[in-house]
């Protein structure tokens, strides 16, 4: 053992070095976020609470009941029921069981009419199971709550048409999907192409 080693051992050099770092840290800016008061920035495409996009013109959901989301869902938490009313298939029931959802976002990506969205909302825990069983009305309400919080007038979800993915194979309605308005359109506008979209997509 050299003299240097003995000095190192006797004077706890490595401990002092570590302590110096700890001391230094006392004078740096804290990295902790004081959560309920401060919030971290939520990035685009965050996969949070489910919502149905409320069509600005018709005021209803855009779902056409193609079952793609229910089929792909790995957790099988989407239930859809369709009925023939006046010779038209109508989605009478659309339920998402948020407690079973694993937030993979597949449903948002497969939806051919961009009706579904995983919003940036993440504070919706509940002690009531029923409150996390989203039916059609609840999903639309989720959208209203989310849209009201949006700063910008329009919203476009990243997974509706992901960047860098060839859109040639996507359904036409998905290719042409533009940002949706977050505020209700007051004046009954001319029949927007959005309203005509469901007819173009083939019903299964």
């Amino acid at each position: 053992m050299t003299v240097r080693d003995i000095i190192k051992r006797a004077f706890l050099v490595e401990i002092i070095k570590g302590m110096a770092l700890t001391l230094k840290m006392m004078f740096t800016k804290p990295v902790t976020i004081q959560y309920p008061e401060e919030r971290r920035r939520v990035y685009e495409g965050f996969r949070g609470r489910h919502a149905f996009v409320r069509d600005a013109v018709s005021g209803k959901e855009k779902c056409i009941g193609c079952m793609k989301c229910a089929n792909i869902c790995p957790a099988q938490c989407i239930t859809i029921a369709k009925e023939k009313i006046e010779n038209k298939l109508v989605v009478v029931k659309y339920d998402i069981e948020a407690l079973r959802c694993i937030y993979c976002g597949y449903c948002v990506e497969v939806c051919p009419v961009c009706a579904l969205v995983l919003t940036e909302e993440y504070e919706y825990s509940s002690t009531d199971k029923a409150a996390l069983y989203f039916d059609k009305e609840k999903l639309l309400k989720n959208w209203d709550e989310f849209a009201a919080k949006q700063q910008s007038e329009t919203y476009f979800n990243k997974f509706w048409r992901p960047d860098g993915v060839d859109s040639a194979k996507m359904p036409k309605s998905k290719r042409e999907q533009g940002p949706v308005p977050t505020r209700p359109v007051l004046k009954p506008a001319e029949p927007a192409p959005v309203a005509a979209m469901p007819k173009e997509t083939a019903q299964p």
Partner: protein
Amino acid sequence: MSPHLRRLATKELTINMGPQHPATHGVLRLVLDLDGEKVIKCTPYVGYLHRGTEKLGENRTYPMVLPLTDRLDYVSSMANNIGYCVAVERLLGVSVPERAKFIRTIMAELTRIANHIVWLATHALDIGAMTVFLYSMREREKILELYEMACGARLTVTYPRIGGVRCDINQEFIDACTAFINEFPSHVEEYERLIDQNRIWLVRTKGIGVISAEEAINWGLTGPTLRGSGVPYDVRKCAPYDAYDQIDFDIPLGTNCDVYDRYRCRMEEFRQSVRIIRQCLEKLPGGLVLNPDAPGYDMAAGPRKKPAPPAPPPAAGAAPAEAPAAPAGPQFEDLYVATEVPKGELGFYFVSDGTGKPYRMHVRAPSFVHASVLPRLCEGGLVADVIANIGTIDIVLGECDR
């Protein structure tokens, strides 16, 4: 021994360590036979977190199994996803665009850093150095933020897809990633300053859990646990996937085969990962990130169309009763593809009957293999070293029990 002392001799005691024990990294149960402080026998019991991922996979199409692989090793979910995608791509014969390969490599290495950070934090915390835990979580947060920037999720990412990745990364991600890899090496130095020469750390890790190279191979160890024994085996080098064949990096090796050398290996891997990410960001090509011909989410569960393979004979006696109406009957093929996840070699073994679902899926989980070596490492040692040994093999029970 005098008769008096013999009367005082200690009695063997069997104790349960876990399944609820903060140092077992999950729900691992060890039954320890102790003689005083000495471990005579150590028996690991696994399976408390069994969720039947492999069986679940048989009832889902290939794209639907992907989110399940997030939940194997939840500390490095991105690496599992990539491992799964690489395996399925090879099975289905799908090519991946260059840009997606590089993005995946960046993500895999970020995951390696994130995983080793969690490993270092918990390993040091178990051994008694709490400060490291607090500092390292700071850097992990930044990686999780990078994940969120890329794909909108922080832990269970589901970012890669069969044939590429889900969505492109933007300039904001590249800037944030560059900033992260520029500052990260200085943080590694901070961790090292705290524990590298610390005498308590040295006493607790040097010469503990020694396993020779030959034995390590025989036990099936992989990853840094094996490389700590000086075996230069790394799937990224031996059978390169994604963009690893275009990247220059070294494999850190240990010499003393103990806990300390495995710790050194992982610390060096931090630096190598930074090096890989830097090269990937520099070389990042343009173009699409998803092969347009790759099977999409609407992949049919029935027989899939294939460009007429050189039909192998159906496995003898394994013809399923529910054979689809395909004219030639099910064509069985099997494939094992390994990738280097932070913990070791993660392999996916598929038996395919030519449909959109795996006929059988098996996950070769490094944590499971590593958990089996615990008796070898612990027996003959002290109780306190059991903790160091659990830390050094870097297991996550979600992956071990699947």
